[in-house]
């Protein structure tokens, strides 16, 4: 991504859907490998978010070759901080840190903490992991970009169980009140949280109606369909005067049959047999 020949040029990604799909497959392989080596971590929610992150970082977000701190870059906040392995697998492909670091995930002295820590990991904007806080942070970034006259767009990835946190709805009001049309929330609607189905633990439906009622431009997409995700990001740019929420319908543990839709794998690493099967299914 940080191609020397493009130095000093703004990179505008030209999405190649096949390439993005292949990247998502490799990101999933990395997630499985990292968690297997770490013997811990959040598998299900990392796999459910893989296509969203790949579409966003490699198909949409504006970066600057040679300057990862470019002030006018598009920004991303991983509000569902437990999806860190997917985030790290994307950041490593953007050249933020060497690939061997991936295998140190969650280990003593690693730059890759169990949940994102901007103090340790190049490319991470802010610490997250305590749920419900990222949307407020994204609002602040969106307000700052507006004041600075920057064209940056701000993206925040939320978990579906996360919207049970009251602060999310405080932030939902603030974003609509200030008409933050440079803000896009993406909701990883994988329908599972630690204790079970969201419908059983604490109902969050009707989800789209809630965001609409809070004044947000709301879309629903298949969160594993990269062209649909890219089209949604593009559509959000046309919306003026209000923030956008993309509800991305996903499958927790997506990509590996034994993990899909199983609440057990929310925060569990694969054992050796599961690891072998996952690598096989992902074509590693």
């Amino acid at each position: 991504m940080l191609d020397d020949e493009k130095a000093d040029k703004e990179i505008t990604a030209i999405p190649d859907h096949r390439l993005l799909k292949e990247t998502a497959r490799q990101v999933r392989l990395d997630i499985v490998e990292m968690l297997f080596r770490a013997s811990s971590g959040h598998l299900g929610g990392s796999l459910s978010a893989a296509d969203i992150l790949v579409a966003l970082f490699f198909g949409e977000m504006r970066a600057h070759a040679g300057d990862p701190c470019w002030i006018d870059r598009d920004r991303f906040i991983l509000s569902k901080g437990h999806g860190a392995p997917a985030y790290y697998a994307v950041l490593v492909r953007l050249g933020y840190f060497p690939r061997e670091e991936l295998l140190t995930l969650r280990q003593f002295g690693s730059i890759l903490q169990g949940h994102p820590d901007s103090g340790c990991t190049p490319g991470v904007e802010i610490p997250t992991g305590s749920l419900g806080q990222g949307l407020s942070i994204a609002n602040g970034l969106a307000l700052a970009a507006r004041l600075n006259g920057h064209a940056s767009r701000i993206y925040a990835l939320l978990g579906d169980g996360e919207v049970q946190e009251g602060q999310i709805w405080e932030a939902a009001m603030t974003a609509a009140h200030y008409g933050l049309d440079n803000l896009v929330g993406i909701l990883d609607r994988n329908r599972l949280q630690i204790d079970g189905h969201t419908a059983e633990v604490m109902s969050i439906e009707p989800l789209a109606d809630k965001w609409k009622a809070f004044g947000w431009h709301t879309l629903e997409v298949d969160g594993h369909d990269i062209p649909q995700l890219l089209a949604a990001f593009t559509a959000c740019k046309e919306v003026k005067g209000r923030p956008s929420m993309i509800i991305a319908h996903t499958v927790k543990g997506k990509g590996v049959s034994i993990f899909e839709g199983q609440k057990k794998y929310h925060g569990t690493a694969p054992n050796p047999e599961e690891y072998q099967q996952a690598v096989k299914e992902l074509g590693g």
Partner: protein
Amino acid sequence: MSAKESTRVEYGKTLAQLGAENPQIVVLDADLSGSTQTHHFAKIFKDRFFNVGIAEQDLMGTAAGLALGGKIPFASTFAMFATGRAWEQIRQTIAYGNLNVKIVASHGGVTVGEDGGSHQAVEDLALMRILPNMVVLAPADGPETRAMTRWAAAYHGPVYMRTGRLAVPVIYGNGYVFELGRGSLLREGGDVTLMGIGIMVQACLDAAAGLAQEGIEARVASLGCLKPLDWELVVDSAQRTGAVVTAEEHMVTGGLGSAVSEILGEHCPTPLQRIGLRDTFGMSGKPEDLLKHYGLTADDIKQAAYTVMARKASHLASPVMDRQAPSLAGR
């Protein structure tokens, strides 16, 4: 002292001045801009003022995002809601992320008065002092408030500053310059040191004046910068006077009394008496009645000085081995 100023008002006015000097400064409030005095800034810099409504958690997160976007945010609400309601947001995002957010919270302590215990923050300094990266300030008067506000705007990193509701006597001159980690020696004396923070600095000065009439010379140290605390001034004062009283409009746990105890316990064990609230919440009433009820007056400080000086005298009279002997014999 005749002139009186309220620390929250001086904060609000200074903030409005800073707004004109530095376009990067933005201000956030949670529906209390009249009380916190951020309305002075809001009136002039409408596009740089953000009211998030009654939503303190969102207040802190939004401030964090603005800091991340290169702005210098000042986030204000009541001390109780800033440090209590939104403690985890401050911890997880602002302190952990070491972000350039200034949290300036008004209505610290029992002098909030009639609103009662729910609105009187008597644990805010403790809640902020425990956080890594956080600087914790509580000015004693108008000039110190102005100096600290200006300092905070120029400093890069998270800062918590407590202001009060009442107008309080002016102690410092207008030339006062605040320095991080430095307290001020306001009065020399060799018999006992009175260490105060916030409105209790004036009470310490009043107590020292009263003690002087009785021939007792009290040293007075103002420690408005609670974290990092002026370690040298605390230890030096303890060594010179051999007796210390701390005074704060706050619980005796976690604030100035604790911080001084920790330093002296580790480096210079010295007889110490703490003035502050003891394991209790506030209540409704007139500020002066509440200060009396909770033992936060100059007279209470005087009494504490007598007590601690008596302990110093008994320490000097009886060497360590002698004091240990009875307890060993009693086993």
